């Protein structure tokens, strides 16, 4: 069993953790084309190399991020989420719904 070092709780058996998927920034949900949104939701890079992943230490419900090399399965570094998310995120008010919205470039593909 692999070890994973939680920034709060230290090294633990990886069975103490929940995998939270790859980290990738969410695109602007109001502006982005449908295709790009679908890629954000459904497609993952699954890169061969170093990726950033979400992990949660189940017993303390603590979420953090890990840099992992998917080729060697080596975990290079773990760090608190506030290293990336440094400030409050707010969303623009929703635009007024338009009738018969024209498809965006992404949708026509």
């Amino acid at each position: 069993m692999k070890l994973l070092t939680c920034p709060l709780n230290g090294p633990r058996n990886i069975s103490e953790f929940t995998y939270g998927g790859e980290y990738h920034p969410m695109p602007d949900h109001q502006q982005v084309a449908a295709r790009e949104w679908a890629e954000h939701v459904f497609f993952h890079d699954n890169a061969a190399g170093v990726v950033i992943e979400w992990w949660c230490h189940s017993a303390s419900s603590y979420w953090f991020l890990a840099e992992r090399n998917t080729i060697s399965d080596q975990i290079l570094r773990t760090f608190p989420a506030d290293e990336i998310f440094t400030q409050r995120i707010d969303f623009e008010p929703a635009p007024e719904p338009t009738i018969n919205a024209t498809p965006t470039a992404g949708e026509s593909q």
Partner: protein
Amino acid sequence: MSSTTPNQIATNALRRSQLYRRHMAMSAAFEALTDSTVVSCYGTGEGELKQAQHLGLADLSTLPRAGFKGLGTPDWAAGQGLQLPVQPNRANLQDDGTLVARLSQTELLLASNLDGLSESIANISLGSQLPERVYSLPRSDSHSWLVLCGSQAAATLSKVCGVDLRPHKFANGEVAQTSIAKINGVLVRNDLGETLSYSIFSDSSSIEFLWDSLLDAMAEFEGTAVGIQALRDC
């Protein structure tokens, strides 16, 4: 409207543990502590101190606990006179015997002394309105509290927990938030005098399962349940 935490509740009956029936079946003698009952000893209690020093399991689930978290918690708690552990996953004892475990920078778990009279908890719980960014947690109800003590406690834990909790690797006052018999919990080493002792706080609805699992793991080392009196005598 302020939120009500279960700690603030006066019940119309003496509080009893969900293990009550198991205790009864083991000929427990109970004692009353303020608004609750706790097992004083099993049977006549003879030899229970020795048992606790060797390997004992006690149910302290009816003793007062409290929890607080939020960004404002450390400053506020210090202002209430609590001596806080500096680092997360450390615990200490207040002057009145109250155990204070720091689970993260901004979260505290308080557990009363063995007399069930914790001034620290009483004071804090009476403080009617919590300041901004301090949130109470109903630790008396959300979590059970078992104490596993004695020289064989670490060996017992090695059968149910994947963290190295041996006394020379896990100092008095250290805290592990981990999985114990596949149940998430907070495990605090808080020795009783010279006696090695671990407090285990875990999901209250799993208490029967955890109790049974620990007694089963203890059997090989001839461990048994002990009452609170044996802990006090340690």
